[in-house]
């Protein structure tokens, strides 16, 4: 009789690790994971350490640690080059695009999931069909369009094409489809019009999904490269990736210390956002299977 409660945990142990040699097996698993982690984090540490090495360190045989830690590379970025400006450009563009997507995508997502209107199926088909279109395909026509509008080298030229992304509509429609109709009906019974229903009932429920969309849109645009490379041709409109790539392939290509410091400036804000919000990001990706 007493054997029964004692035996109960046994199947659980079998589930977590079939076969024999569980502890020894787990040790190997941890060893693999830790080894892999060193490999994943290593380049970031190399970047951080490189950014505080004095220039002399790059002329001798490479070392892991700086001979004398210095902030010299950073001050050159900020004083000789216009990194505060690039940082500002990247922030303005990524924030504006994020706000646009947070406004336009839920609206269309709601109309597609919960409203009845003619043309809905066509719009839905069109938006979903563009979900996987390569970014390169719209680059040249948009460049010509922006040239005609006089928007090359301006914020509107860098922001407008990304304000309404199909990914956000896909994400929002999926979510809004699951919102119970009874909830919306109750609000309509109380005399609320559709905009009121959307604003006071749907938006509050959708807050976590909106957070996911906001974070993914911000990260995607902060890191965006091909389009700003084409559209920002004058240095005062460079975003951080464009500036870094231009310096790395141009006159500063051997200035390792400064390039590492530039990479730190580009990477660290993203790491902070990620570590603060990692649950929303990984869950959003796992449920949609898309990076944004």
């Amino acid at each position, binding site marked *: 009789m007493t054997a029964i409660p004692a035996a109960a945990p046994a199947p659980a142990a079998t589930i977590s690790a079939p076969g024999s040699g569980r502890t020894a097996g787990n040790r190997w698993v941890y060893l693999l994971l830790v080894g892999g982690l060193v490999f994943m984090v290593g380049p970031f540490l190399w970047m951080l350490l490189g950014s505080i090495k004095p220039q002399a360190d790059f002329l001798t045989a490479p070392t892991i640690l700086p001979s004398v830690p210095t902030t010299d590379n950073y001050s050159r970025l900020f004083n000789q080059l216009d990194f505060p400006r690039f940082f500002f450009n990247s922030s303005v563009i990524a924030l504006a695009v994020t706000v646009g997507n947070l406004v*336009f995508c839920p609206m269309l997502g709601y109309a597609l999931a919960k409203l009845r209107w003619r043309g809905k199926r066509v719009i839905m088909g069109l938006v979903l069909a563009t979900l996987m*279109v390569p970014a390169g395909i719209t680059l040249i026509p948009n460049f010509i369009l922006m040239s005609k509008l006089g928007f090359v080298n301006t914020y509107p030229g860098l922001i407008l094409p990304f304000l309404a992304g199909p990914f956000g509509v896909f994400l929002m429609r999926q979510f809004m489809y699951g919102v119970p109709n009874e909830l919306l009906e109750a609000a309509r019974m109380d005399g609320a019009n559709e905009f009121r229903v959307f604003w006071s009932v749907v938006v509050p429920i959708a807050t976590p999904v909106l957070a996911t969309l906001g974070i993914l849109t911000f990260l995607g645009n902060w890191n965006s490269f091909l389009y700003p490379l084409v559209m920002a041709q004058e240095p005062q409109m460079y975003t951080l990736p464009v500036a870094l790539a231009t310096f790395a392939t141009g006159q500063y290509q051997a200035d390792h210390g400064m390039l590492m410091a530039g990479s730190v400036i580009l*990477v660290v804000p993203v790491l902070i956002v990620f570590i603060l919000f990692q649950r929303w990001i990984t869950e959003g990706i796992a449920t949609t299977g898309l990076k944004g």
Partner: protein
Amino acid sequence: MTVPALAQRRTAEAAPSASRRPWRDDLVGWAFAAPFVILFVVFLAFPILASFLLSFTSFGLRDIANPVGTSVIGIKNYVDLFADPKFWKALFNTFYFVVVGVPVTLAIGLLIATALSRGVTRFRTAFRVGYYLPVITSIVAIAVVWRFLLNPDAGLINMLLSGLGIKGPAWLADPVFAMPSIIAMAVWRNLGFAMVVFLAGLQTIPAQLYEAAGIDGAGRWQAFRYVTIPMLRPTILFMTVITTIGYLQLFEEPFVMTLGGPLDSTLSITMYMYQQGFTFFHQGYASAIAYVLFVIVALIAFLQFKFLRSDE
């Protein structure tokens, strides 16, 4: 009397719960849709069509002032493309990147996900965050850092190799090693994405299946081979397509690390499109390159759709 009654009944049948004023529903629906749809049509749908049309023209720098005035040259761009050795080289390089990069990325991603999902309880979040970090960082920054890691004189990799008594190659300056170096970096950057999606897929596999496999005497490898792989098939297929579509658009890595060299060994389709469109200003020709890539991507997306359909 019967005619209006019939008509009334017909509308009632067609839309049983529709409001009495369908035009009003249309108005509300379009009010929600219009802001997105306008931006979508102007900056996405129209450009997709426009680049198709551009690919049949000789559009160049001079035509920007008057785009409509460019000369239509039929399929000449595509004919030229077919005879262009650089285009074939770019196509080959891109496929090389995809064919080696995708399986390696997914295999390592799946390995890490399986390791994390079984028996690992401590530091789970730390592992997840650590492996995912590169996915959300800028490819440009990563490419700059890796170029420095791979630097034959000042880089960490050859320093570590020389510690083992091996003289490392010039990596990015060597036509044989340049593409494998870029593949290694892409795997490093993207395996965390595969890991997260596979982790979500693994959570949907019922524990009883592993239990049953365990009772039948299956070891770790057998459980992986006969339970995990078959159960994850849809996720693996989906990830293969998503990763392939992403990898086909290779651009930042060669742009920053090699500029397509040495000897065009890392020139990708998008890189070649960029060169033709914005270095040489042959925008008609570049549009044809972009469209070839578009068709390849569309074909893969379509095949996935067919496969997933026949799977269920």
